[in-house]
């Protein structure tokens, strides 16, 4: 049990890390990774939704009739997304302003629905939570890593939380503005995917 628990948790961190291995949920991955703080905020919000939707789907897996299961999953996911949205507005309003529409869009993030359908509906609640937590943290780390590359090259800084900058390039640094615009997201993601495939090949 403990072994499979650890396995379900760690698979989300490398073997099935969402944007790179599963290549899922790319819409927020490309859109919000202009700053590390946005990537982290988006990742944490998604993790919250993933853990609780996985838990509920798993607890209700024997009650939900299979013909209306997708509708039920969407109701559960949308509920938690709305809770996250209201909570973020109340607690971290500046971050909410930056992420804007991408918070409500977690409802249609294929990672969340994908884990509900592919994992939580077939496994017990403890494993489902471990899976949600693993995938969620993997997603957060991927967003932060991609955002770090883009922000460092595009703006010359790394901002982790609400204006707290942990790293800044020298005054001679010329920002590579392409990286913080939309096409830069595709290029950076493609290069990171290639890099991960190269490492994973052995």
């Amino acid at each position, binding site marked *: 049990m403990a072994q499979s628990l650890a396995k379900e948790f760690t698979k989300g961190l490398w073997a099935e890390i969402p944007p790179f291995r599963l290549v899922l949920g790319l819409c927020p991955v490309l859109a919000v990774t202009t700053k590390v703080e946005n990537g982290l905020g988006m990742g944490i919000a998604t993790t919250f939704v993933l853990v609780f939707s996985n838990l509920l789907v798993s607890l*209700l897996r024997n*009650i*939900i*009739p299979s*013909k*209306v299961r997708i*509708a*039920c999953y969407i*109701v*559960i996911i*949308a*509920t938690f997304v*709305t*809770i996250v949205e*209201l*909570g973020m*507005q*109340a*607690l971290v*309003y*500046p971050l909410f*302003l930056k992420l*804007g*529409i991408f918070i409500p869009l977690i409802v249609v993030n294929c990672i969340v629905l994908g884990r509900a359908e592919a994992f939580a509906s077939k496994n017990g609640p403890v494993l489902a939570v471990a899976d949600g937590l693993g995938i969620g943290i993997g997603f957060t780390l991927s967003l932060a890593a991609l955002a770090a590359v883009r922000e460092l090259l595009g703006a010359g800084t790394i901002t982790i939380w609400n204006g707290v900058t942990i790293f800044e390039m020298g005054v001679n640094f010329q920002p590579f503005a392409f990286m913080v615009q939309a096409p830069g997201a595709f290029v950076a993601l493609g290069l990171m995917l290639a890099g991960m495939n190269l490492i994973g090949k052995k």
Partner: protein
Amino acid sequence: MREMISMIVVLTVLTSVSGFLLSTVQSVTKEPIEIAILNIVQAPAIKEIFPEAENDPIAERFPIETENGPIKIFPAKLADGNTAIAFETKGKGGYGGDVGFMVGINLENDQIIATRVTTHSETPGFGARAKDDPEFVSQFAEKSMSDNLGLKSSGGSIDAMSGATVTSMAITLAVKEAQRLYKQLKPEILKQIK
């Protein structure tokens, strides 16, 4: 038949529980959200509009009923002894959604003192300049609340930002809404301030 009933029951129960849960969360977070909007969005705009106010317009704010729900009025005592107010309206149809716009008005002569963009989701470098660069919004200063403050293309007196006509249009709509509300609410506001 049994399957049909179980589908109906499960979905009904699930959506009801969800609705109940969300209404609870909504009522719990309502006040903190209002405070967050006040501190993070409205207060900085008020400070820029009334840099030399002799009172605290944010602490002395009061609500006034309109047909679309209450709006917050921020009263300010100016250095020359006159009273001014500021309130926020939404300009419909910006490039990325509604544009929130705070208008400060001198109650004595009905002139605009200053204006600021509060919330927006316009494109950085284009529409977002309305907030980042005060040049566009400074055109409204010292204009009368009864002037035609539309864009020049529609017979008004405001130059649109180049490359951001849609944003400029949304802001003039917000100003027109402010003019309409001001005309309608001024007697009530004067009563409240005295």
